[in-house]
């Protein structure tokens, strides 16, 4: 939709497909500077005044936020950027007008594309005014003063005139609120200037080259551990080479190419175990830890948690795999840790007998026997000079099974829009001697579904919605009208998901709620 702005540049076809992950870095010596790029490509409309650009200089955002802005400038206003200019502008703006780590912390789940995340609670008014269309994380990942938030409201209604007509808008004087109370409130909650940003933007940040110890967990799937070697790529980015082990057996190699925006926002693109992966990580403020989520670019809902710690860090236990053992059982265990001495001694606490079977750079493998009368409860794990509480527990029996997420959404797939699956995980707990529930970690389970209520049974949702795989992943059915359903409805479903965990001869059940719904047509970098 043309709005009469000059179309200054020819369309670059790759712009739409481009994203943050490991794009060629604009760090070569002959690359134009960030201000030059903004001046060249943006100042035709966003006039420059003494080094500041109208609107642009009044906003701070996450890297994804700037990508969304450039996408809109392309899509709505006809701006076409060469790929390297696009990347250079995003990088420059994210670096100079980004968010401090403390400012992006609350909305990280959205940057990490976490499925089934619970949105921020900013109160019912903001939920209705903003959160009914997009996540409140998208709001909380921006900084403006009240006058620019007001312009943002004008943009919203100018671009999306049906906003005022929708449910939760037409029950109130939406435009009056949007142009009076709301900008003031947002300007107070998320102002352009902050002490946190001043401190962060003026501070020095550690380089990330070196050896790192990595642990990762893919819900419903695998635990990974091993090492990462991070180097510079010579163009202002990083390369990471992974050598990981899968607790289910085998090794997982991989590598990625990443750009670190704003001094801490790691965005990587690579492959892990032969499959393409994307990385949205954050470097801790002291530069000692990298954490976040990696995911499949074609199915962003598939991915896992990721933590890397510098290999030369102070001794610490990163993971104990598995996270629990049953009294009277025996089996292997893996401790992932930094600062391992030669010939480490391992203790898993009372009631356990441990025999170390092998020691690697950042992991120790042991054979463990748990006494039949070992008391149920959490155990401190000590390896060399590192110890950890809350990472390992002994149980006599499983008392409770929880299924996470407790509420999930899957989407039917077909055509240009792939299905969105839902991955469930069963975690168990036991009571310790004091009666306190102690988490035992993920367990394998027998998975099944049943109608959530009588209406779901009547409409045969279980038959039409899809199927759950043995690993707890729900695969939705195809999209489109189904003439054998009421109203030719889609293969939507309202289901209870059941996990049955076997503890000896006893089975303990947990459940979750799954909605299988229709496709989402517009998938944005920040939902």
């Amino acid at each position, binding site marked *: *939709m043309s*709005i*009469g*702005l000059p179309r200054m540049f020819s369309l670059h076809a790759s712009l739409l497909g481009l994203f943050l992950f490991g794009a060629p870095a604009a760090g070569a010596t002959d690359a134009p500077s960030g201000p030059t790029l903004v001046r060249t490509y943006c100042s035709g*409309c*966003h*006039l420059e005044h003494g080094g500041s650009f*109208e*609107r642009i200089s009044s906003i701070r955002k996450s890297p994804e936020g700037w990508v969304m802005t450039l996408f809109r400038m392309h899509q709505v206003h006809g701006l076409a950027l060469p790929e390297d200019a696009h990347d250079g502008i995003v990088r420059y703006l994210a670096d100079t007008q980004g968010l401090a780590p403390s400012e992006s912390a609350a909305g990280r789940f959205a940057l990490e594309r976490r499925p089934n995340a619970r949105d921020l609670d900013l109160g019912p008014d903001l939920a209705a005014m903003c959160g009914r269309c997009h996540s409140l994380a998208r709001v909380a990942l921006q900084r403006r003063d009240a006058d620019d938030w007001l*312009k943002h*409201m*004008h*943009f919203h*209604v*100018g*671009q999306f*005139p*049906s906003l*005022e*007509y929708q*449910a939760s808008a*037409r*029950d109130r*004087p*939406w*435009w009056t609120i949007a142009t009076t109370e709301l900008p003031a409130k947002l300007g107070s909650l998320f102002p352009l200037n902050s002490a946190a940003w001043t401190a962060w933007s003026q501070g020095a940040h550690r380089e990330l080259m070196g050896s790192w110890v990595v642990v990762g967990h893919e819900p419903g799937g695998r635990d990974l551990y091993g090492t990462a070697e991070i180097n510079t790529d010579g163009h202002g980015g990083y390369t990471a080479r992974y050598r990981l082990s899968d607790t289910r057996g085998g090794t997982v190699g991989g590598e990625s190419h990443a750009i670190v925006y704003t001094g801490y926002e790691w965005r990587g693109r690579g492959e892990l175990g032969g499959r393409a992966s994307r990385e949205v990580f954050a470097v801790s403020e002291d530069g000692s830890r990298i954490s976040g989520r990696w995911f499949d670019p074609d199915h962003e809902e598939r991915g896992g948690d990721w933590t890397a710690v510098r290999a030369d860090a102070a001794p610490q236990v990163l993971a104990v795999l598995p996270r629990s053992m049953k009294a009277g059982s025996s089996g292997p265990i893996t401790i992932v840790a930094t600062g391992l001495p030669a010939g480490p001694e391992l203790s898993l606490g009372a009631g356990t007998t441990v025999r170390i079977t092998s020691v690697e750079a950042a992991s120790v493998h042991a054979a463990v026997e748990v006494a039949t009368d070992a008391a149920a409860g959490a155990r401190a794990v000590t390896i060399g000079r590192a110890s950890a509480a809350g990472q390992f527990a002994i149980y006599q029996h499983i008392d409770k099974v929880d299924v996470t997420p407790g509420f999930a959404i899957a989407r039917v797939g077909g055509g240009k829009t792939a299905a969105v699956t839902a991955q469930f995980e069963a975690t168990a707990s036991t009571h310790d001697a004091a009666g306190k529930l102690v988490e035992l970690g993920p367990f394998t389970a027998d998975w099944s579904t049943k109608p959530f209520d009588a209406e779901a049974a009547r409409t045969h949702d279980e038959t039409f919605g899809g199927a759950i795989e043995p690993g707890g992943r729900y695969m939705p059915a195809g999209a489109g*009208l189904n*003439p054998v359903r*009421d*109203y*030719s*409805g889609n293969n939507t479903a309202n289901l209870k998901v059941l996990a049955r965990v076997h503890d000896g001869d006893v089975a303990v059940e947990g459940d979750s709620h799954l909605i299988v719904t229709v496709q989402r047509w517009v998938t944005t970098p920040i939902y």
Partner: protein
Amino acid sequence: MRMTTRGLLAVALVAVTTAFAIAPPARAGDLLLTAAKPDRLYVIDTATRSVRSEFRIPNAGAHITTIVPSPDGKVAYVLVNRMESISGINLKTGREVFRADLSVPGERVKDFCAFTITPDGKELIVYELPTKLLPNEYRVEEPRFAVFRTNAGLKAKSIRAYSAPRRLHLMLMRPSGKSFYAIGVDLYEYDVASGKLLNTRGIQKWDLVAHSQPDLLAFWPVTEPTGVFTSPVISDATAGGITAMKTGLMSLDVVSGALDFADFEDTSALIFSTVLAPDRKFAYGVYSTLTKIDIEHHSLAQRVPLDHTFYSVNIATDGHEIYMGGAMCDVAFYDPQTLQKRANLKLPGCGDQSLASLRVIPAR
């Protein structure tokens, strides 16, 4: 209007197929107007349940919503181009005889479904939502009613404009031609000539006993065949300490000005639009079900599931048949007594009707 050979063939095939399959009893029929993506306006002969004409609307922007026929039934005014243009199509020739492109360089103007025509057919009154497109910001301007002369041709410009409230979704001309109703946050009545606000009634200002603020958004401007516009209304009603969601019917007689509202059920199905039967004893509502509402007893008379969602409903001038459209590419014909389906007419090309109005005009 221009029509492709393929389109003509498709129309003919549908007509033939329909005639063989579901030939209705012969009676003086109405014509139905509907529209579908990307740019089609259809005239359907209800007597034969066949497509009489298929017209292409120029520069429709693959987006067609509200249809307002001229009082003499010769021209259909259609909101197209993502709510930014009104195109008048001659229903005999298919030629575009009127065009108002509301946006101008530097100002984008949308009409959220609301426009109406004077009884003499000479003026269109259009609800305009303008936004100034400044170099690096948008500025939302105050809404207005803009008046266009229908003989202004294909580059029509408004001849006068009046201040209007925000968030209107419907406009209905009164038969006198002196005033029109505008429905949104409240029910407003404006003077056609001066644009003066004559009165404000109902909806959010309704003082409904033991009811929450009512909610309605039916933006299909159907007053045929009775001269009464009806809209489903949702509200919470409290009785005996129990609060329940209620579906009611708002009715506005554009002839007498009578405004009424009454619940008819605890909400058990969504209804998007309704129409009042000529005997005024029943109204019919659609979405994924067809609902028959007993007007006299304020009760749910009957409800049947539909093959798929329909957003638009209308009824024969003599009340013998219910018509449904506004979604996907078929128009359904139902028996108002039994709510049983009599026929489906698939539109040639199978474009999505996508919220388009379904209007009844006399057969000529």
